[in-house]
């Protein structure tokens, strides 16, 4: 049973973000977002919508209405397993999966993703591993993940880990590419790139909004 929230249901226009929709729409092909007829095909196709706090359709509506905080701090975007069934079946060609990604990126940048929720942490661990070595070291990432979120779970999973280990399917060895400098140079260059579709270029956002 959630705590009673009736008191803050009302949304004042002044609390909403007029540019949020345009931020999201600025991803490649994102303008289709405005074609949404709220038919719910996305939510119907989505195998995870039953576990989301807002269905994908609601997320689109909220994005258009400027409910920035609600969207970015919702679990929905993180539960998206990017199976693309919404994107494929949307009658208005809205790239929902990409929109979920865009929301996740914004949430991370603005540090408003749900706290102590494993998925964003997995994402950042994965990201760090690849940034650093060019490959993901599954074993190490998982261990870190469990330590950060729920150490108990790690003990639960220990049995599984062991089974995997004896079958040679699990190792803590650090994977990586040989020519790291090369890789790092490429990624470094993009550091300074303020990318539109990451929605973090205020100028572009303004333009988009107008």
């Amino acid at each position, binding site marked *: 049973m959630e705590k009673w929230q009736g008191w803050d249901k009302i949304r004042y226009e002044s609390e909403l973000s007029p540019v949020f929709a345009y931020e999201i729409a600025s991803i490649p092909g994102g303008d289709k977002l405005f074609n949404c007829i709220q038919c719910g095909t996305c939510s119907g196709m989505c195998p995870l919508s039953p576990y989301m706090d807002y269905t994908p359709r609601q997320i689109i509506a909220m994005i258009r209405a400027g409910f920035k905080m609600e969207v970015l701090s919702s679990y929905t975007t993180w539960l998206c*397993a990017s199976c693309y069934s919404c994107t494929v079946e949307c009658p208005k060609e809205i790239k929902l999966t990409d929109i979920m990604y865009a929301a996740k*990126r914004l949430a991370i940048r603005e540090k408003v993703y749900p706290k102590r929720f494993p998925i964003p942490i997995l994402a950042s661990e994965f990201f760090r591993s690849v940034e650093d070595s060019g490959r993901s070291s599954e074993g190490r990432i998982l261990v870190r993940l469990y330590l950060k979120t729920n150490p108990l779970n790690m003990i639960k999973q220990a049995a599984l880990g062991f089974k995997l280990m004896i079958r040679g399917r699990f190792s803590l060895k650090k994977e990586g590419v040989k020519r790291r400098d090369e890789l790092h140079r*490429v990624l470094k260059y*993009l550091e300074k790139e303020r990318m539109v579709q990451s929605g973090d270029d205020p100028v572009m956002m303004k333009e988009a909004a107008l």
Partner: protein
Amino acid sequence: MSYIYYPGCSLKGTGRAYEESLLSVFKALDIKLEELDDWNCCGATSYMSVSELKAFALCARNFALAERQARDSGMADLVVPCAACYLGLNKAKRYLDEYPDIRKKIDEALATANLAYNDHIRIRHPLDVLVNDIGGERITERVTRPLAGMKVACYYGCQIVRPYADFDDQENPQSMNILVRALGAETVDWPLKTRCCGGSLSGTIQDVGQRLSYILLREAIRRGADVIATACPLCQFNLECYQKEMSRRYDKPVHIPVLYFTQLMGVALGLSERQLALQRLFVPFTAGSVVPETVGGQHVGN
């Protein structure tokens, strides 16, 4: 014919059996696979959640390396077994084609490391290669141990056919079914063949992720499948490794072998358990067990 092989991180870890069986099978069919030198991560799901542009850059580096490696033959056919990598690379390729502003930035980034991508890449899934380049007939010719009487549920998962792949139908893919039938097995009609297995959720939000996998297993069993064939390391992991846990969690217990389609092929082609890494499975499946004598009997007069 020869292809450049992009393993991706999982096929070196939890999905080793996929790599080992794939290589053995391709070898048995005399298809040349040459691993991409110094390949890096494809920037899959989790990475893309942090930076899309960098994810594209990671893919672009792989493309550049592949083109370099295939310089002589012009077009580089990149064989990508992992569903997530396959999608990630496909997506990057699309976006680099379709959005000049992205392309420009990536090209610049590559240039800083004297790398270049010249659109000479084709991204191929092993299913695509086997069905469209080799063809069911030629595979049947090589079968020494037909999987007669075996009922297989072919599981494609989400990311192979959706949303970019064009080698198979998005709503009702057939390539794996064709392949499995070519091995002499039957395929069960199973509408969930492209429904999500829960992906990384099985590890993170276990109840949610495992519930999705459980729905798949339960329905496959209900439709009389003896074994499930997969084409993705994460799907295989989710469907196989949590079966004990699921049986505890949910109403009906589930117990069914989950193989990579390449392992299944290997069995039919008469390869050894080791070559196919069957010993790495949780739910045992020995080459001997596939053609129970009784089945032979059943199938007299076929």
